[in-house]
């Protein structure tokens, strides 16, 4: 309990300090200079476990570098020897004679070749933390003993910021899981949200030009464990995920005209969304933050207005009058009181916001180009979206905008088409669709545009949304 309070207090202080410090996007990402420097040398394993160490090491590095909260120290700057456990560290001669105050890095002229903490804290590595450990095959399990070492502590005996043991299945999947768990523990130690255990929902397109088939799929944030959810053998598109991650909603042409579906993620069962007769378009659903209602696009009174209804389709009513094409409604996840959407009401498609009752409509993008795909940051202050500003029609790039100030940042720069950004639960990552390889695939990146990783490679994959 004390720890939780401490985390909240420090997080608040940290955020307030940042907000006072610089730009509109500090809620999203800290700048590189202030981040702790982390060294992540490869861990070794014995016997059977050794064959899975490259998977382990690669996964751990990707998770930590991708977390956006560390400056990763390049491997070329590490000392020659890497301790395998905390007790391998020796006390450097100077530190031995002259105990320094806690919290100060120990400059030491003595070179332990990696066996002194100071070997890692001093140039060229200049790390604040280092991860060490070893793996072994025990009782047919992949067992990892791992430490996060705080290099500001003079005595290595007390330098363990984290000491953990992970036991997983003795295969590549087990090694990957162990690395994810260690990565999570480290990321959470620094007050950030772990991405392992969250899921990305997306659309995989197959079939021919004449009879295209799209199904809804899900995968882990690193692209692993791809799994098909729908088997409708029709065009199904535009998935949204409920705040608790238990349900998805999407649009499908399986019965002819586009209609709304609500499915259980766990069972893949159709939960039933009714009252859809009489409209040629029912689609693009997304959940309210309480998970009890969905907002969507409908042509019930002409194409197309924004509507809201309960999860089973009851209590349906219009939020906007259908004088123009309004689409992609997304309720602010923090307040539940406003809707971001895209609309052609002033000409080409732009991003707008309004109160959840349809009042106080404001255009957020400046009217240039075409803007679409609004996605709320978990804090409810920043939107990610796709915009052709400065480019030809159809050449979308990913932008983020502070809704209160209107200040925006461009994150992708014409590497193909980049669309459908969706915020990760940690508020630091985005998943999006890009055709920069020549084919539409799912990518993730940090909200400053760095650390772009391709997550799908098989087939055509699009319209991702990041959920729990």
């Amino acid at each position, binding site marked *: 309990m004390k720890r939780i309070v401490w985390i909240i207090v420090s997080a608040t202080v940290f955020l307030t300090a940042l907000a006072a410090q610089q730009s509109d996007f500090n809620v999203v990402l800290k700048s590189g200079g202030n981040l702790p420097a982390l060294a992540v040398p490869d861990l070794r394993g014995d016997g059977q476990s050794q064959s899975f160490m490259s998977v382990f090491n690669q996964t751990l590095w990707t998770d930590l570098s991708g977390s956006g909260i560390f400056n990763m120290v390049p491997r070329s700057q590490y000392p020659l020897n890497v301790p395998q456990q905390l007790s391998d560290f020796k006390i450097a001669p100077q530190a031995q004679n002259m105990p320094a105050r806690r919290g100060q890095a120990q400059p030491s002229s003595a070179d332990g070749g990696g066996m002194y903490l100071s070997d890692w804290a001093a140039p060229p590595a200049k790390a604040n933390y280092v991860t060490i450990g070893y793996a072994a095959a025990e009782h047919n399990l992949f067992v990892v003993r791992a430490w996060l070492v705080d290099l500001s502590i003079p005595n290595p005996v007390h330098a363990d910021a984290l000491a953990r043991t992970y036991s997983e299945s003795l295969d590549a999947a087990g090694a990957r899981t162990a690395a994810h768990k260690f990565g999570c523990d480290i990321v959470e130690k620094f007050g950030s949200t772990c991405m392992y255990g969250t899921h990305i929902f997306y659309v995989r397109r197959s079939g021919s030009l004449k009879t295209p088939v*799209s199904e809804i799929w899900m995968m882990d944030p690193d692209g692993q464990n791809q799994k098909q959810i729908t088997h409708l053998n029709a065009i199904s598109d*535009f998935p949204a995920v409920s705040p608790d991650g238990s349900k998805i909603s999407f649009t499908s*042409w399986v019965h002819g005209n586009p209609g709304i579906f609500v499915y259980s993620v766990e069972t893949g069962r159709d939960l039933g969304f009714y009252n859809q007769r009489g409209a*040629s378009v029912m689609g693009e659903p997304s959940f309210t933050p309480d998970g009890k209602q969905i907002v969507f696009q409908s*042509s019930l009174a002409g194409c197309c207005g924004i509507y809201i209804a309960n999860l089973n389709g009851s209590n349906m009513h219009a939020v906007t009058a259908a004088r123009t094409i309004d*689409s992609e409604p997304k309720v602010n996840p923090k307040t539940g009181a406003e809707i971001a959407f895209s609309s*052609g009401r002033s000409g080409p498609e732009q991003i707008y916001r309004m109160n959840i009752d349809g009042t106080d409509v404001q255009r957020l993008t400046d009217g240039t180009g*075409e803007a*679409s795909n609004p996605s709320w940051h978990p804090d409810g202050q920043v939107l990610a979206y796709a915009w052709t500003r400065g480019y030809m*029609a159809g050449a979308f790039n990913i932008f983020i905008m502070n809704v209160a100030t209107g200040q925006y940042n461009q994150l992708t720069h014409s590497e193909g088409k980049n669309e459908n950004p969706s915020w990760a639960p940690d508020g630091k990552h985005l998943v999006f669709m890009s055709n920069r390889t020549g084919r539409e695939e799912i990518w993730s990146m940090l909200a400053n545009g760095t650390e772009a990783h391709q997550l799908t490679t098989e087939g055509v994959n699009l319209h991702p949304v990041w959920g729990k």
Partner: protein
Amino acid sequence: MFKRKIILVCLAVSVALFADGCKKKVPAPPPPPPAPAQTAAPATPAAPAVAQFSAEPSSIERGQSATLRWEVTGESTNVSINQGIGTVRSAGSQQVTPTSSTTYTLTATGTGGTVTASATVSVVSPAQPAVQAPPPAPATHQTVEERLSSDTQDAYFDYDKSEVNGDARDALTKDAAALKSILADFPNVVVTVEGHCDERGSAEYNIGLGDRRASSAKEFLVSLGVPPDRLKTISYGKERPQCTESTESCWQKNRRAHLSVGQ
């Protein structure tokens, strides 16, 4: 609490055992007795009976004829054969030339009751020279899909627009005339007006744009006299393109209203 759980488990186990025991003791119910054989109702003296109803030969090549022969005995007030032959005398024959295998049913009605009998003429296709291409089907035998694809054309739209103008008006004007004829020939068919978009706008926005294109094309057709209840609209946005090249000619091909057979 724990004790109560144990009691519950014991109770459940004993109930399960007991239920199992019961099953063993009670023999399975015997299968239901066989349904009584359908015995023919005894003919009342005055009831009609079919002494003969046959087709000669029973198998023909398409274009040839067969002869139906029949004889009804007893008292009958009406004797008829279906498949368009109608009321006949109580005994007689008739030549038929069915184009496909046909079963004829003779019905004899009298004060004593009604009897029926049937005869089938099988029709086989005449053997054809192996390489000869089939002659083009006459217009009257075209399917509704074939008629739509040969007699109607797509109406094209400007980028991000759903108004019917220019070439689209000409295309839809011709389509309206063709549709009226097609809908008259196929009285049960509903035609779908599909709305499509090019790849450039967002997939989400294009669902609306495709719907607007389909609606305005439908309105235009209705204004030229096509019955509105025979047309429905559907938007595919950019989900079902005709082509995928990023060129203006491909984009133009995809910004269209297209007519297809409704589901």
